[in-house]
């Protein structure tokens, strides 16, 4: 299917975005389509995480519209059915096991007490299998390596079963093989029809694995295929000077 025929999952309309009084994006419009893996690039402080948080509904400090699956006014509950968000920072989770963590991803679908039905349990098992952690399902999350813990958090996002998945710097703290594994995993998720956007500083990884690259540069959002974007990325990161 041609790229432009895929349904639009996220649309930014005349979006202006700031953080602590600094303008990061000015009047940006863009469309992210279903089934695409997009890397969101930019220098430190360019506004990658701020944009991702705005799409996730964690930051309301913007003007313009963020349209998710055709709606720009979602309640938190509606949003939780459409967007799963995975943060950078590793949380201390005490006695929580991988299974319990991933099961929390089912929260938008479960009753007031969070009781898991058969379908929920299957979704949890499947999400854990997708990230390759089935063997470690009963281990405490705090006892895992950084790479494994990151995958467990992603499994929680998969279990949430949303058409859109946003990940804030999932590759930081990971060694080279783990970064490759993670990129493959994200690619697989996108191939299943989900819209996956992640912020990263791994330019090479982004160009190799992603369908699209979005680059924040001088308050603009530049957007295109990895080939189209290569010269712009080099310019933005001053790579031709090195």
């Amino acid at each position, binding site marked *: 299917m041609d790229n432009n025929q895929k349904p639009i999952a996220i649309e930014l309309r005349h979006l202006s975005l700031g953080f602590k009084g600094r303008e990061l994006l000015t009047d940006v419009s863009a469309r992210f389509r279903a089934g695409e893996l997009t890397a969101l690039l930019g220098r430190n402080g360019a506004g990658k995480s701020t944009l991702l948080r705005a799409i996730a509904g964690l930051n309301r400090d913007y003007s313009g519209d963020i349209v998710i699956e055709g709606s720009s006014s979602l309640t*938190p*509950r509606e949003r939780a059915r459409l967007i799963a968000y995975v943060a950078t920072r590793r949380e201390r989770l005490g006695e*929580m*096991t991988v*299974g319990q963590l991933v099961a*929390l991803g089912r929260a938008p679908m479960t009753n007031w007490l*969070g009781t898991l039905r058969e379908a929920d349990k299957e979704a949890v098992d499947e999400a854990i299998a997708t990230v390759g952690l089935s063997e470690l*399902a*009963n281990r405490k999350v705090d006892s895992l390596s950084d790479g494994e813990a990151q995958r467990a958090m992603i499994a929680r996002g998969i279990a*949430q079963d949303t058409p859109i998945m946003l990940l804030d710097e999932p590759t930081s703290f990971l060694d080279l093989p783990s970064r490759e594994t993670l990129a493959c995993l994200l690619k697989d998720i996108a191939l299943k029809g989900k819209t996956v956007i992640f912020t990263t500083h791994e330019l090479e990884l982004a160009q190799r694995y992603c369908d699209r690259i979005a680059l924040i540069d001088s308050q603009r959002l530049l957007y295109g295929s990895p080939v189209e974007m290569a010269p712009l990325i080099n310019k933005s990161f001053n790579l031709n000077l090195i």
Partner: protein
Amino acid sequence: MTLRPTSRTTTLMGLLAAATLLLFIVDMASGSVALKFTDVARAIVGADCPEQVRSIVVELRLPKAIMAMAAGSALAVSGLQMQTVFRNPLAGPYVLGISSGASLMVALLMLGGSALGFSLTSNLGWLGIAGAAWTGSAAVLLMMLAFSRKFNDIMVVLVLGIMISSGVGAIVQILQYVSADDALKNFVIWTMGSLGNVTLEQLPIVLGAVAVGFILAVAAIKPLNLMALGDDYATTMGLDLRRSRMLVFASTTLLAGTITAFCGPIGFIGLALPHVGRMLTSTADNRILLPATTLIGASTMLACDAVAKTFTLPVNSVTAIVGIPLIIWIIIRNR
């Protein structure tokens, strides 16, 4: 299988319930007059036993043992909630200054109010104490929440909690210094913590408030499970953080505030026992932790009360002696 087998949990709950029941009888039997277990059991179920035993058991020791269970479980559950909401293993109603807030308001009422003819002898007076304690704990909770959101650093929040406690301590001392002897004596006895101040008539007020606190705690189980992952995850999974926090805080105010009002500030139970619960159940799931912590709180407080009665000590010094080594162990384990 991603979910641990429940048989272990069921066995554990059974054992905890049995321990609570056993300690309930031990607590009833201990005190200045030593009673036989069999007589105590007979008195409780209403079977034939000496009238003197019946009156000691039913009128004196029963309300106290019930209070011990209510106090232990309420404080432990409140600690469980605070540790989850503040995402800090060292949070608890005492550490965060919630008990201090309650103390200050109670001190204002008891020491300041005595000049205005306020009397502790009436049930209305005790309702006033409860109201004062709720107001004080809720005020401190909201303040701590504001601090924790602004500074986002748990050490800052803990230091502020300690500052609040010290500040309140100073104000209370000033109040004591300028107060009349009678009011002062009442207040000092209150600060020592006692489970025995509650009469049979007051018991329904306490149990009613604590029961509402527990109902809210049950309603807060799923929100608490989500909050354990942090605000961002909880929000993106559809949780209304403001509402959920208010729910938890209302619950904690009723649980910790009521117990503080009627028993005085009792430390360390709320901080230490949720950790015992986590250790025994090895889970972070509040659906299991809530009942487990409730039972651990009830049984521990019964044991502390039995010890306090046997050696005629104030109960909060016993909870401190039991709690402090536990807390040191938690700190070492968390390193």
